[in-house]
């Protein structure tokens, strides 16, 4: 049973013998890279790259859903990447001072 199930996965039209599998696997590299970069100081973050990544992953979640064959692995990957990159973007924005005006506005009200 387990053997035949693995065999079915191996020979699936979206299995590891095809780029329908390896394409998304490569994309998980973005998620891993984002996670690694969370350990680095905000100055290391590229605002250009993080912003582009956020837009890109949002659109590709839709793409993954619509492409034939449908690619759930890719959809999950881009949802994860969207989360990671939004966090990176918020760290970058905070470091650049874009969110400090909010803090300054909050002070008078306190």
């Amino acid at each position, binding site marked *: 049973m387990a053997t035949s199930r693995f065999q079915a996965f191996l020979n699936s039209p979206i299995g590891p013998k095809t780029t329908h599998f390896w*394409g998304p696997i*490569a994309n998980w590299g*973005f998620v891993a890279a*984002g996670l690694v970069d969370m350990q680095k100081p905000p100055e290391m973050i*590229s605002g*250009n790259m993080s912003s*582009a990544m956020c*837009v890109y992953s949002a659109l590709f979640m839709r793409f993954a859903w*619509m492409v034939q064959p449908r690619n759930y692995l890719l959809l999950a990957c881009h949802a994860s990447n969207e989360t990671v990159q939004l966090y990176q973007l918020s760290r970058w924005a905070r470091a650049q001072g874009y969110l400090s005006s909010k803090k300054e506005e909050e002070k008078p009200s306190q």
Partner: protein
Amino acid sequence: MATSKLQAIWNHPAGPKTIHFWAPTFKWGISIANIADFAKPPEKLSYPQQIAVTCTGVIWSRYSMVINPKNWNLFSVNVAMAGTGIYQLARKIKHDYATEAEPAVASE
């Protein structure tokens, strides 16, 4: 003639009415962001991110050709992405190893 050509593009299964057109189009944003970062000092570059950009570009060039509908826009943006990723990695590696080389020269 021109009208019917535009009509064909408009109604293509990977045309501008579909996500198959817009997703790759915005993926160009990643290559453009990388090109914008060419002006940044190499020490600010991230190895994991640039390696991910390069690997994804290479593998997705292939993936673009086997999905339905076949997507030349996606193919070309991934080739560009691989190219910009490789260039950025080259800059950073050159910067890191050149720094190491200098002390060796100084010691001679």
